[in-house]
C-alpha cells in the first residue's frame, strides 16, 4: 500500500517528536527506518498506523485518510516492541483473536512460525523472555499478511540465531507475498541487504530517504596533507573530520567523478568509501540537545 505523509507533526506536551514530515512511500517495498533513540521513529510509525492521531498534518494510505478508517485499519498491522497483548493470556488466545479479527490472517503460516521460533502456544504471554516476546511479535506481524506491515524494533532481545531466522522468514514471505513492510532498526549492518529503501530520521525529521543501494558508497573519506584536503573538499557537505599531525581525514556526503579522484590522487590524496552504518553514524551524530 502506498503511503503519503504531509506536514506530519506529533507532539507530546511541549516535546515535538515528529516535526513537519513529508514522506511518500510507494507500495510493495521493504523499507528500513533508521534513527537514534528519541529520533521520532516510533512516533512516526504510530501516526502511520493510526495508533496516535497526528497533532497536525495528515497520513493518507492508498489515497484515503488513515486515521479511524476501517478499510485502512484492516489492511495495516503495527507490531510495537512492547506488543499489544494481555499478559495473562496464553499465546493461543492471542493467535485465536488475530484469526477472528484479521481477514488476511494465515493460520498455518502462523503455526509454521511458532515452530520456527520454538514457541509454545500453551504458555502465557507473561512467561515469555524478551527475545521470545519479540519472536511472537514477528509471528503476529508476518502471519497477519496485511498489505502494510510495520515492525518496530522487532528484534529486541533476540539472539543472533533468532534474528537470522527472523530476517529469513521476512524475506521468504515477502517474496511469496509482496507487500509494503516497514522495519525500524538500530542493527543496520545485518539487515540493510533486505531493504529496498532506507529512511533515516534525526530529531523528528526525515534527513534521508533513498534507495539502499544508493547509500552504499555514497559517503567518501578523503585523507591526505591537511592543506590539500581542505582545498579539495571546499564546497562539499562535511560529515566528520579528524586530524593527526599534518594529515587530515574528512568524511563527505557525496560522490566524486573519476576525474575529481584522479586530480585528488595526483595531489597526494587518497579516497575511501564508507559503509551504510558509518554514513548513518556521521549523519546523525550531532548532539541531541542541539535541537531542544
Amino acid at each position, binding site marked *: 500500500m502506498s503511503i503519503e505523509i504531509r506536514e506530519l507533526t506529533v507532539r507530546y506536551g511541549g516535546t515535538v517528536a515528529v516535526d513537519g514530515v513529508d514522506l511518500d512511500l510507494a507500495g510493495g517495498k521493504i523499507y528500513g527506518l533508521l534513527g537514534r533513540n528519541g529520533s521520532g521513529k516510533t512516533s512516526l510509525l504510530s501516526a502511520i498506523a493510526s495508533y496516535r492521531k497526528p497533532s497536525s498534518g495528515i497520513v493518507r494510505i492508498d489515497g484515503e485518510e488513515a486515521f479511524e478508517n476501517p478499510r485502512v485499519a484492516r489492511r495495516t498491522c503495527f507490531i510495537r516492541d512492547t506488543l499489544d497483548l494481555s499478559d495473562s493470556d496464553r499465546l493461543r488466545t492471542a493467535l485465536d483473536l488475530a484469526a477472528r479479527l484479521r481477514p488476511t490472517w494465515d493460520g498455518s503460516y502462523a503455526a509454521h512460525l511458532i515452530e520456527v521460533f520454538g514457541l509454545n502456544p500453551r504458555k502465557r504471554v507473561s512467561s515469555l523472555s524478551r527475545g521470545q516476546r519479540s519472536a511472537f511479535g514477528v509471528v503476529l506481524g508476518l502471519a497477519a499478511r496485511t498489505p502494510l506491515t510495520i515492525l518496530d524494533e522487532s528484534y529486541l532481545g533476540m539472539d543472533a540465531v533468532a534474528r537470522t531466522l527472523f530476517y529469513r522468514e521476512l524475506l521468504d514471505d515477502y517474496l511469496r507475498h509482496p507487500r509494503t513492510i516497514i522495519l525500524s532498526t538500530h542493527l543496520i549492518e545485518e539487515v540493510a541487504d533486505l*531493504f529496498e529503501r532506507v529512511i533515516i530520521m534525526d530529531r523528528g525529521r526525515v534527513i534521508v530517504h533513498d534507495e539502499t543501494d544508493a547509500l552504499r558508497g555514497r559517503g567518501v573519506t578523503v585523507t591526505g596533507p591537511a592543506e590539500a584536503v581542505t582545498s579539495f573538499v571546499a564546497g562539499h557537505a562535511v560529515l566528520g573530520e579528524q586530524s593527526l599531525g599534518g594529515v587530515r581525514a574528512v568524511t563527505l556526503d557525496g560522490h566524486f567523478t573519476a576525474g575529481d579522484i584522479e586530480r585528488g590522487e595526483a595531489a597526494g590524496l587518497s579516497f575511501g568509501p564508507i559503509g551504510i552504518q558509518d554514513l548513518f553514524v556521521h549523519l546523525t551524530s550531532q548532539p541531541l540537545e542541539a535541537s531542544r
Partner: protein
Amino acid sequence: MFHDRSPIYLQIAEGIKNDILSGSLEEDQQVMSTNQYAAFYRINPATAAKGFAQLVDEGVLYKRRGIGMFVSPDARARLRAERRERFFAEVVAPMLDEAKRIGISVDEIVKHLGEK
C-alpha cells in the same frame, strides 16, 4: 557475500560477469530468477532485479518472455575483450606508476615476469 561500500547491484552484475568469464555460466544458459537470487543471497529482490537489468542493458543477458533470463551467446567474448582493454588501464598502468615511484625499471618487471 556482499560488502556495503559500493552498490550491491553492481556487485551482483560483476559476480555474474565473473561467472560467465570463468565458464561456470555458459552461453545460452538460464540464470537464476531475481526471486531465486534474492532468496539465495538474502537480499532485496528489487536490488537483484536492478543488477540483472544492468546486465540486460549491457547485452550480457537477454530475456525470454515468460521464461527467464539467459546468458547472451556472445557474452563471454565481449566481456573478455572489455576486460582485456581494462586490464592495461586498470591493472598494468597503476603497477607501472608504483614501480616508477619506488625505482623499479620496466626491464626488471619483465625479467621478473619471465621467471614465472
